């Protein structure tokens, strides 16, 4: 066992001059790309343990009911059933379609046996009024479904900001005023890997192993400690590969607690992954909203007044929506009034989802800016620049405008019209985010044989985190990425952060850098006697170390490591000065609208994004592309559908809950904003998902004059906006 190297650092780590970088700020193929492409990578879904049971949950099909009986007898006698348990008793109520609607859990020897046993459970229940729409929730005498204590209605307390009279006066004096009501549906996260765990129990107080599809490897032991009846230190969580979370996988949830409980009771490993239908019913979503937004501008296009009244639709949760004006500036801040409340339905509570609340706010605000520009005959880019404070936004908007071909576009200050039913338009949107950075640790070990391990508990949600865990160390030590082994996804490794709010890179990367820097200085301390230069005066490059300014005094990497008598362990921690979390972004979209059929085809999307030093340009562009795709899918297709009569979730599958596929994907250009020369790193995943659907809606309007005020932009929506509802 190696011991920490205890010597004071000769200098603080730094990301260095960009021109000196050999590994970072380049395209680095992800280190786990091949195992993911070949299927060799083991996700939680793929874990198979000897003697493992397959568990499933039974979700009540409608949101509200009084349970009369849950008869498990026939199911318990089905072949292969090992454990079956009801979670509700006669007389209990199902209050909403979410974790409260889980009626039973079954574990069997095979997945099919578990599914068959679920089907054999006989539930007698009195179905109650569903309360799945805001209209139903707001009806006089509607059943109260809110989870707030002593709630007497389904409306949460309104959050009012500003002085309505001041806003009204400013709007009355405005040269141009636009007022619209926007409707934004609930979006699912649609993680490729559904929620779930595989729990391997252990006798007495031995360590339990939990494979988890989680955004919080380090936090999950605490989340399961009570259920598993042991200290968090006796629970090891493994997430070697993870199929996406987008904010929905911060904790083990009911499904994790049930997996742990069944493993405890049966003493056997338990595999409990939600089906897609379960996932859509109980594993969270992005809240919807209804926003009535009124914005006024002066003759120069400056925003002078704003009023927003909004309902957040987060099911039994509150939902999210940032206050106005979203990103843009109103000349007199006192002329902004907002009243935002939650309207609760008996449906699954919203969870964090990639930039919670922001895409919803963006949709309304960008639409208002577009319409003011047209009322005033202003260029869509000019009006944005006039109302955005940051010069970063200004340059990013100009870059995306250039890339999308704005200067040659005919409809810059007014919407176009279709020719033979076809029209092309361009739209814009901007984003902001403050990706945090906080306590995180990393161990770097250098062995006498030259091998290097970089280890931190962090999870790779599919973002490429694993790759920079190796690459940052390779850069510091003058190695190639393949010479450093990245170990992640294990709660026994040095703790890392929960991946939420784009904090992972801003937290982990500084700790990795710190550990790598300490390892380098540890090695340089050994070299002072060999190459006769003090710590801090070496250049590590191309697998060699040499004395700065004297290339003749040099050793290959393997010879340096041979000086070690035992492995060198360097422990890094979060260093705040290596991180800065303040980012912007701009997007443009170009679409073709067929006004005869309502088809919207996105032709091209462009993003320009800043984030300080790009650790891995390839992964960065991938994540920007992913943001654009997710926003495009949200805008074009995604919509949760409930039957309003009885409350069935009709879209509990990927047939009816439609997400973009290959044919929807346009030409995509991800521009890294290299004018941002900050010597810091941060995550940026939220920013590129914020404005894409807004830019598409703007492009549709720009093409043919149809302002879609609800999402998604499906043919029914386009045709009804153009020609009215039949």
């Amino acid at each position, binding site marked *: 066992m190696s011991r920490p190297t205890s010597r004071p650092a000769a200098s603080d780590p730094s990301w260095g001059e960009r021109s000196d970088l050999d590994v970072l700020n380049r395209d680095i193929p992800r280190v786990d790309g091949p195992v993911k492409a070949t299927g060799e990578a083991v996700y939680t879904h793929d874990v198979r343990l000897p003697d493992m049971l397959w568990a499933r949950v039974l979700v009540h099909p409608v949101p509200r009911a009084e349970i009369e009986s849950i008869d498990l007898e026939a199911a318990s006698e089905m072949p292969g059933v090992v454990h079956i348990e009801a979670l509700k008793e006669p007389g209990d109520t199902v209050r909403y379609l979410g974790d409260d609607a889980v009626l039973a859990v079954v574990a069997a020897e095979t997945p099919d046996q578990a599914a068959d046993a679920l089907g054999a459970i006989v539930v007698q229940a009195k179905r109650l009024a569903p309360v799945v729409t805001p209209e139903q929730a707001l009806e006089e005498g509607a059943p109260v479904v809110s989870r707030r204590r002593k709630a007497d209605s389904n409306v949460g307390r309104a959050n009012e900001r500003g002085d309505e009279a001041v806003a009204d006066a400013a709007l009355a004096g405005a040269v141009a005023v636009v007022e619209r009501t926007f409707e934004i549906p609930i979006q699912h996260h649609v993680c490729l890997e559904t929620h779930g765990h595989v729990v391997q129990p252990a006798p007495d107080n031995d360590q339990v192993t939990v494979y988890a599809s989680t955004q919080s490897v380090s936090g999950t032991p605490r989340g399961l400690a009570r259920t598993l009846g042991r200290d968090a230190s006796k629970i090891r969580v493994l997430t070697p590969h993870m199929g996406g979370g987008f904010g929905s996988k911060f904790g083990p949830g009911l499904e994790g607690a049930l997996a742990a409980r069944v493993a405890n009771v049966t003493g056997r490993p338990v595999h409990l992954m939600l089906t897609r239908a379960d996932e859509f019913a109980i594993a969270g979503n992005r809240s919807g909203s209804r926003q009535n937004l009124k914005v006024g501008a002066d003759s120069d296009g400056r925003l002078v007044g704003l009023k927003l009244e909004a309902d957040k639709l987060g099911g039994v949760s509150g939902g999210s929506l940032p206050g106005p004006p979203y990103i843009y500036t109103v000349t007199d801040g006192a002329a902004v009034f907002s009243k935002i409340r939650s309207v609760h339905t008996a449906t699954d509570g919203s969870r964090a989802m990639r930039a919670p609340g922001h895409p919803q706010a963006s949709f309304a605000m960008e639409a208002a800016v577009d319409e003011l520009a047209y009322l005033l005959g202003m260029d869509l880019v000019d009006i944005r620049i006039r109302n955005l404070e940051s010069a970063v936004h200004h340059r990013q908007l100009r870059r995306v405008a250039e890339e999308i071909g704005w200067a040659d576009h005919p409809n810059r200050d007014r919407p176009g019209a279709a020719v033979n039913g076809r029209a092309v338009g361009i739209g814009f949107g901007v984003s902001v985010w403050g990706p945090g950075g906080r306590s995180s640790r990393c161990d770097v070990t250098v062995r006498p044989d030259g091998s290097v391990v970089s280890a931190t508990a962090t999870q790779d949600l599919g973002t490429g985190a694993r790759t920079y865990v190796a690459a940052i160390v390779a850069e510091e030590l003058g190695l190639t990425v393949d010479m450093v082994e990245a170990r992640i996804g294990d709660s026994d490794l040095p703790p890392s952060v929960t991946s939420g709010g784009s904090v992972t890179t801003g937290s982990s990367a500084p700790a990795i850098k710190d550990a790598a820097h300490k390892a380098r200085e540890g090695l340089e301390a050994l070299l002072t006697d060999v190459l006769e230069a003090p710590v801090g005066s070496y250049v590590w490059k191309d697998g060699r170390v040499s004395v700065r300014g004297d290339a003749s005094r040099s050793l290959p990497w393997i010879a340096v490591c041979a000086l070690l008598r035992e492995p060198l362990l360097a422990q890094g921690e979060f260093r705040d000065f290596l991180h800065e979390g303040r980012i912007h972004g701009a997007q443009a979209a170009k679409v073709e609208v067929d006004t005869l059929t309502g088809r919207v085809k996105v032709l091209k999307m462009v993003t320009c994004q800043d984030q300080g030093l790009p650790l891995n340009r390839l992964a960065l562009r991938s994540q920007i592309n992913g943001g654009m795709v997710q926003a495009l899918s949200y805008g074009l297709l995604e919509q949760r559908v409930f039957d309003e009569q009885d409350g069935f979730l009709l879209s509990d599958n990927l047939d009816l809950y*439609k997400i973009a596929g290959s*044919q929807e994907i346009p030409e995509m250009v991800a521009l890294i904003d290299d004018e941002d020369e900050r010597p810091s790193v941060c995550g940026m995943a939220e920013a590129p998902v914020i404005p894409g659907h807004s830019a598409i809606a703007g492009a549709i309007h720009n093409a043919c004059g149809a302002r879609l005020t609800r999402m998604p932009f499906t043919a029914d929506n386009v045709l009804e906006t153009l020609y009215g509802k039949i």
Partner: protein
Amino acid sequence: MKDFDLKLPENLDAAIGELPAEYTREGAQVLAGGQDIVTVMKDDIEQPAALVSLQRLGLDGIQWDGDGGVTLGATVTVQTLADDADLERAFPALREAARSIGSPQIRSQATLGGNLNQRPRCPYYRHPSVSCFKKGGSVCLAEFGFNKYAAIFGGGPSYFSHPSDLATVLLMLGATASVSGPDGERQVPLAELYVLPEESLETETVLRPDEILTSVTIPAPPAETRSSYLKFKERASYDFALAAVAVSVVLDGSGVVTDARVVLGGVAPKPWEVPAAARALTGKSMGPEAWTAAGAAAVADADPLEHNGYKVHLVKGLVFRALESLA
């Protein structure tokens, strides 16, 4: 999904012998590519005790009759219809329809016969917890509930829209199905193959439970026929039709339509021929005026529900675009 027996008969008579004379939810059913029946079983809509595979019956041939007509075996895959060069030359609309179906994986497994005999896609019908007319129940929840994808023609008491792309295009092409049962073989024109909910709720076709659709024969098209199949998918990558149009026209030397046929898909519980649209074209010059008139005629009798009125606009647009592509 309930356990079932897989029957692998070696000849047609043996296959027919495995099928029940009367429909029941548990009765044996035909298995071709399995792309629909297996999902029907997984969603607990029907629970056949046995599936009778057509795999060993040699129904996967394509035979040309020498006059330009062709007979397509029931188990010819959709991908074959999408790829076959001779079919493409003779019946381009058929290829367009085949290529619009499902995904490459599904097309490679799905068959002509299976596509023609697939069950509704209505989300209520497919939901395991919902009872409806089509599942022996006493209500159509789509009538007053979520009916965005439902029928605008021919609905009642059930309002599903038929999902088959091939049915729409084959009806336009004047095809005839060969159907075999205990009493031998009969020929059923595509125009007579499907029934409306008002005629039957337990099935969508005139096939009896113990009959097997073995092939489809398409007659040679008249000389100078132009045809097209235009399908509107909400999700372009992979979807059933919101609406679709199969159209053919014959033009004289001066560009005047001398004959036309227009069949709509995705808008009725069966493929929906609109003779009025064909009449609106006949005698007119191919051009926007005639296309617009044909679209208007196509939807004249539409009777939309609360959420599917857009299909009226959409069908008009699709008729226009399909004809435009033939100009």
